[in-house]
């Protein structure tokens, strides 16, 4: 109750808040993409031979692919040779303790509202902070280590836990899965790795905060979460980028492996720079996220609040392999000005008695286009399975578009599917009602929109929910009247 009000009071600034950049001295790869660049990245990270081989194989595969065209998004052809694929702040990387970290770096994250100082953090959230291509700090490692939980940067995991990486890397999202996944597999730079041993409930939220800083640099991070039998973890991901006139590419891969009885909650607040009001600049956000419920009774739940990026192409999915496993997808996608989002999920039911639930809330304003794309597949073997999908769209003004593309395949007769969809407009009468009670226009819109998105917001961890509500409102500022 009180958080809503704080939120409403807080958003006073109208522009993208995180649009500044810092001049870190950077260690960069030369522009362009070829096998030498792949080797350069691998070498920078002291990677083992097998990983370089995996990267090169991915690169060769990618080189012969075409960019996918089926998304309901339009943007100029990306010149993959005009990008840099590696950029690391020189003073970043590999610090033993936070005391050694470049104070500028700490300040950068403080400005983003992320404290890397463990003592200063109010709530129990461990953070892995990634700038451009490298992880610069991971907090609470020791606390977590006592429980056998591994939470570190991906690069570190490659060196320190090669057996785990070898076993799970590419096991959920194979390198050949799609164009961007192949690209990521070739050039991924850093990201987070998280391993929860059997029977352990992770006592704090784990979170990765991604920040693109350098210009002309693609960000290709990779996150891998492995939850062993009977374990639980809640994982948060946040991201921002400076305002730049050119578009920047972000092509991440997230893989989640949930063993028997394990539960993984993955929440994202995506706030990459969306471009300006005329549609200049902004991030191309082409992300592959997938989880597998490998064991019986496993559960994976995706919650995303997508407010940023110029173009979003993203379908966090679940493969429900274990019997009685559960997949959930809760999404709010807001687009304004010239933003385009094509997002949704895939629920692939393979095990018996598997359940999935999809709640998608799309909010479109300005001249933006917002598409929900979902695929529910219930295989022959997956008897007695269920899916419930709900896709609601809220339109503001009449120059934007909302689209739904639900694909449903049910290959057995004992399973059930329910699909509901609504489209509504924020009414002038709703806004007047709010104003008549003393709310200004922006708070009125914020209230109505947050009400619309409530079912999804309720799934976010508290700290994130506040930020997310604020973002929704910010994204839509100036879009009425």
């Amino acid at each position, binding site marked *: 109750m009180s958080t809503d009000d704080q939120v409403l009071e807080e958003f006073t600034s109208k522009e993208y808040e995180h649009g500044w950049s810092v001049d870190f001295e950077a260690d960069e790869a030369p522009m362009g993409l070829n096998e030498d660049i792949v080797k350069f990245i691998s070498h920078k990270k002291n990677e083992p031979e097998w990983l370089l081989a995996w990267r090169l194989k991915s690169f060769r595969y990618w080189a012969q692919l075409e960019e996918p065209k089926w998304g309901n998004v339009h943007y100029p052809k990306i010149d993959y040779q005009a990008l840099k694929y590696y950029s690391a702040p020189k003073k970043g990387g590999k610090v033993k303790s936070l005391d050694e970290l470049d104070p500028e770096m700490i300040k950068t994250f403080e400005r983003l509202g992320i404290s890397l100082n463990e003592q200063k953090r109010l709530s129990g959230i461990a953070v892995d902070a990634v700038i451009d291509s490298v992880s610069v700090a991971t907090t609470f490692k020791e606390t977590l280590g006592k429980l056998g939980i591994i939470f570190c940067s991906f690069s570190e995991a490659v060196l320190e836990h090669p057996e785990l990486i070898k076993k799970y890397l590419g096991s959920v999202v194979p390198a050949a899965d799609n164009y961007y996944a192949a690209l990521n597999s070739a050039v991924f730079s850093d990201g987070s790795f998280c391993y929860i041993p059997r029977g352990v409930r992770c006592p704090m939220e784990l979170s990765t905060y991604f920040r693109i800083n350098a210009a002309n640099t693609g960000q290709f991070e990779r996150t891998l979460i492995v939850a062993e039998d009977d374990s639980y973890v809640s994982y948060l991901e946040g991201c921002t980028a400076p305002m730049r006139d050119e578009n920047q590419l972000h092509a991440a891969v997230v893989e989640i492996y949930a063993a028997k009885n394990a539960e993984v909650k993955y929440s994202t607040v995506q706030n990459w720079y969306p471009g300006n009001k005329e549609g200049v600049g902004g991030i191309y956000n082409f992300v592959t996220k997938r989880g597998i419920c490998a064991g019986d009774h496993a559960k994976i739940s995706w919650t995303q609040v997508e407010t940023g990026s110029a173009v979003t192409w993203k379908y966090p999915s679940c493969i429900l392999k274990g019997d009685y496993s559960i997949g959930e997808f809760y999404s709010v996608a807001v687009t304004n000005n010239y933003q385009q989002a094509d997002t949704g999920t895939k629920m692939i039911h393979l095990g018996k008695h598997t359940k999935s639930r999809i709640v998608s809330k799309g909010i479109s304003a300005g001249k933006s286009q917002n598409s929900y794309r979902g695929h529910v597949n219930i295989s022959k073997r997956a008897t007695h399975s269920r899916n419930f999908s709900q896709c609601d769209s809220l339109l503001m003004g009449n120059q934007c578009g909302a689209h739904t593309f639900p694909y449903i395949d049910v290959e057995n007769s004992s399973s059930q599917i329910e699909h509901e969809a609504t489209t509504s407009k924020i009414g002038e009468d709703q806004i007047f009602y*709010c*104003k*008549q009670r003393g*709310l200004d226009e922006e708070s009125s819109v914020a209230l109505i929109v947050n*009400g*619309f*998105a409530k079912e999804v917001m309720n799934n976010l961890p508290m700290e994130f929910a506040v930020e997310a509500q604020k973002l929704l409102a910010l994204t839509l500022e100036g879009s009425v009247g």
Partner: protein
Amino acid sequence: MISIKNLHANIEGKEILKGINLEVKSGEVHAIMGPNGSGKSTLASVLAGRDGYEITEGSVVFEDKNLLDLEAEERAREGIFLAFQYPVEIPGVSTTNFLKTAMNQIRQYRGEKSLDAVAFLKLMKAKMKLVEIDQALLSRSLNEGFSGGEKKRNEIFQMAMLEPKLAILDETDSGLDIDALRIVAHGVNSLKSKDNASILITHYQRLLDYIVPDFVHVLFDGKIVKTGDKSLAMELEKKGYDWIKAEHGSLETI
């Protein structure tokens, strides 16, 4: 408190209010009656500052301020409250949350500190009792799936919480059964003080059995054509509006 002079208003080029004059002082209760389509809701909307109306002539002064210069939310913060004839649904937003947000914006405007959760809850409890409304209803999405009576009672509850200087009740009595009507009237009566005033827009005299007005006005074809005391309402109840139409309708046909 409010002084309306020669107010003319158009909607979509059509003149609806055709020179309204009305003076309401602190402590007074005014009833506005009139047949359907005479402009009662339009007057309420214009006073509350709804977009889409063009004021072509006249003035409205509210507590020394030129009301027509203020945005709808500023009017609300200055103390004008409209109980809607058709309250709007806001999915996913509870009455509680809605009111808390509204209240804090009003308080901020007036340079007062936000109410803390405890004080807010205490106030809510007191007002809930007054209009005999249930906590459960206040936790549900605002007006979504509410019965007609619940919506109206919720409007009065909001009024009780916000304690306006001038309350305009637009047909709050319509569609209420006798018990609900009594509760609503009780709410309105207990909030009445020498420092506030209300305008009751109504169709029926029966509300005025419970809330005794100081003045009764008849609005017809965008103008106040008759003003009297409670006995005028009785007369209207008995004779209907036809005699008014007969007296004034001729003006329109010229």
